């Protein structure tokens, strides 16, 4: 698999994503600056977390007009993989590549902590290697992560199996809205109808190797690695 990590002014998870792809998974990965108009020939484009363009106006609102974004949209149109993490997810919704929007957290403050995610199903490139692991642990770090979509949109998401991750409450239940940030239907991550564009607020790149993943499941947490592996398998299988 070949991968590109888009670097926007204000990205701050770009190096982490590149590190996981290149050093942990051995993927041929490189940075692409936001002013580029073309992508190198890659299978996967990652839009990393951060505060692109200072979150001016709305998180992701300006980034969606970055010169590279037309190439990212064309890449998605060709059925290739796009993965937006945190600010990357916000950018994808602003760009209309994923449905819904991400609003200021219900309790108004920035949240930085581990969350537990319920994996909805494994019929997606992102979750295909999580088989048998119904709960994944990884950190969130966001001020604007409250997922919202109108009623019809939510029915479509649910009906098409586009919801991939939901926030779990402490008692292992899934709320009508997520306790942590107020997300509708506790949605933490979704994919598009075609199944090649993914977005999630939690950070799998921060829980992809034992050294930095922190503890989970009675050992060192590498849950995030599973998601990148899923994309890798999908890309290799598609060749």
């Amino acid at each position: 698999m070949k991968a590109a990590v888009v670097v926007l002014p204000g990205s701050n998870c770009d190096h982490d994503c590149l590190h996981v792809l290149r050093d942990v998974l051995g993927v041929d990965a490189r940075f692409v600056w936001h002013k580029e108009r073309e992508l190198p020939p890659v299978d996967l484009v990652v839009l990393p977390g951060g505060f692109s363009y200072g979150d001016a106006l709305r998180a992701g609102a300006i980034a969606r007009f970055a010169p590279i974004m037309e190439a990212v949209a064309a890449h998605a149109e060709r059925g290739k993989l796009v993965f937006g993490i945190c600010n990357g997810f916000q950018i994808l919704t602003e760009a209309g590549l994923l449905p819904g929007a991400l609003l200021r957290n219900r309790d108004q403050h920035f949240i930085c902590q581990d969350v537990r995610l319920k994996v909805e199903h494994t019929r997606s490139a992102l979750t295909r290697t999580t088989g048998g692991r119904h709960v994944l642990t990884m950190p969130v770090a966001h001020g604007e992560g409250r997922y919202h979509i109108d009623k019809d949109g939510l029915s479509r998401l649910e009906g098409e199996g586009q919801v991939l991750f939901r926030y779990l409450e402490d008692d292992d239940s899934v709320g009508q809205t997520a306790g942590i940030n107020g997300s509708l239907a506790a949605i933490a991550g979704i994919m598009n109808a075609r199944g090649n564009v993914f977005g999630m607020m939690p950070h799998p790149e921060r829980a992809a190797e034992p050294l930095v993943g922190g503890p989970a499941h009675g050992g060192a947490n590498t849950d995030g690695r599973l998601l990148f592996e899923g994309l890798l398998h999908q890309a290799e299988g598609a060749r």
Partner: protein
Amino acid sequence: MAFLARIYVTPRADVLDPQGGAVTHGLHSLGFEEVTDVRIGRYLEVRLAGDDRAAAQTRVTAMCERLLANTVVEDFRFELDALGDDR
């Protein structure tokens, strides 16, 4: 000739506005018990050149739809004032 667009962007009715809720509580605490709801949005002033009001109207609408408001979660409306040459 130029125009000033006063643009109001507000959360849509079906969108929870926790900031507005907090301010409602604050106003109640201060004794303004008649307050039934507060919605907090964003106010923008956009100056644009041109002398065709209809064209400006169309352009500002497009600006709102494409960037200034996220119509998935926000509504917008605006007033368009003609500005004299001295401004």
